């Protein structure tokens, strides 16, 4: 695995390498190099099994992290390629040409995070949410609690007490 990481570092600008375990590494790469690196890993290093593509919302940094999880079936190695993209008008190059199922992941990301993958097949079709009219729900600024309070009717008559507050009220109200 070390050797593969060295090969990659020779050819690409890798900003961070994390060894999670002996056979699982995460590497960070710039947005523009990402698809090239993934292609390289697939075609040259033979990480032919694409496990997943998902996003992590780092709202405080104004970034989305995209993770491409690849697997080398015979050497039994995993590599996670991380890239950070702007949260505003998030767009990423599509990787649908590399594996058939990538388009599904990209379609879900478009819907759930609002990350666009121009050129990806059916990327604009709703995946789970038909008729959704709010911001993409997996973004951290979408508040599920607020949404449910506005959308549904909470059961009336519920109230709870904080033990410390309640004891103050009962035992030493004037202090």
């Amino acid at each position: 695995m070390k050797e593969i990481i060295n090969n990659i570092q020779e050819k690409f600008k890798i900003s961070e390498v994390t060894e999670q375990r002996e056979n699982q590494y995460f590497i960070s790469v710039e947005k523009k190099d990402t698809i090239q690196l993934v292609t390289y890993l697939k075609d040259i290093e033979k990480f032919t099994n694409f496990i997943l593509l998902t996003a992590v919302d780092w709202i405080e940094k104004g970034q989305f992290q995209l993770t491409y999880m690849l697997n080398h079936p015979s050497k039994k190695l995993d590599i996670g390629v991380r890239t950070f993209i702007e949260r505003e008008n998030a767009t990423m190059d599509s990787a649908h040409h590399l594996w058939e199922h990538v388009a599904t992941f990209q379609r879900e990301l478009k819907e759930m995070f609002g990350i666009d993958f121009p050129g990806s097949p059916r990327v604009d079709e709703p995946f789970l949410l038909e008729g959704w009219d709010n911001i993409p729900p997996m973004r951290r600024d979408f508040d599920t609690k607020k949404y449910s309070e506005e959308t549904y009717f909470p059961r009336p008559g519920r109230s709870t007490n904080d033990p410390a507050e309640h004891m103050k009220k009962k035992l030493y109200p004037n202090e």
Partner: protein
Amino acid sequence: MFHWTPDRSAFPTAGPDGKFDFDSHKLVKIWHGPNHPGVTGNMSLELTISGDEVLESKTHVGYLHRGFEKLYERRTWIQCFPTVVRMCVPESDSNEYNLSAGIEELAGIEIPEMAKWLRTLVLEMSRLQALLRIVPAQGGTVGLGLGVQWGVYLRDLILDRFEELTGGRIYHMYMIPGGVRGLLPDGFKERLEENLILVDEFVLSIKRLMLDNAVFKKRTVGIAHIPVEWIDKYGIVGFVARGAGVKKDVRLDYPYLAYDQLDFDPAISTDSDIYARTWIRWNDIITTVDLLRQIMAKMPKKGEFKAPTPNVLHWQVPKGEVYVRSESSRGEYGFYIVSDGSKYPRRINLRGPSYTHAVSLLEKMLVNSNISDIAATMVSLQTCPPEIER
């Protein structure tokens, strides 16, 4: 032998370029599901058909979307456990295992030996009950409902064992970070063995009923073929890959828990059709029963079952990310977990086998297939929509 072919001469035909004109208003669009007995759970297929042939299929999910991955933004790590099991209804334990294992890896916790064996036991029991339901259900998709009755009865017996071990039948919530929530009750092994003997009988009788059945063979052999080149192209895992001759099994490839101390060899076939995939899963029942017997014989009699963890009420799992996987009855089941070092997970992402099996792969396989084979094809992939929409 009786043979009948419908007259397809009046069906719309493809144009000179071999493509159908989808705007010609000559093609019929039908919805297969979400309310259809041949659909595996709450999903539906939007089919464009020409006569009884499928020209295009689009998978629609979202009928069971509960937004668990979103909800974990405001759940503490321990609070994820009651819902994480619900990501896959028929086989909930892989979820608890993956989340526990991921947290343990990030926090650097080594679980006790006893807990490893108990987890292995539970995962195999879980596989067994899933297979007991789905293997005869393959017969159900072609009109053979009897085996399902047998399978569901036996599955109920396994659920009884779950009930006495974990306190719950479907959602066990038995594995938590650090280990498990209890030891085996007295007499558990004997009662499980009694059930396994019944499963042994079932294995033979379902073979006679379904696998050695002329009608079943007629309906499944050579149908829904998956070429071996598709394995990587579509990210195919588990028994579907094994059906195409590629031995993929997380238990062997990336041994976890006590699997490196167990002796097993999952079945493999190169036919890659519905029959082959059914036969493999039928074999998986035999393997699993054997594994359960090995586990019972090899597991320690007593010992610590949970490693100490920090106070779960405000456990801040160290910053980091990890991909953990285990073998479910459907294949590689993975969790991608990101912690930002706070009380709450930053991201928990499930990658289940059905994410590709039921979407890109199924959509591709159904093109040019016959609508009467759709249900059998879906069940032969053992698709499970909750793990797609989470």
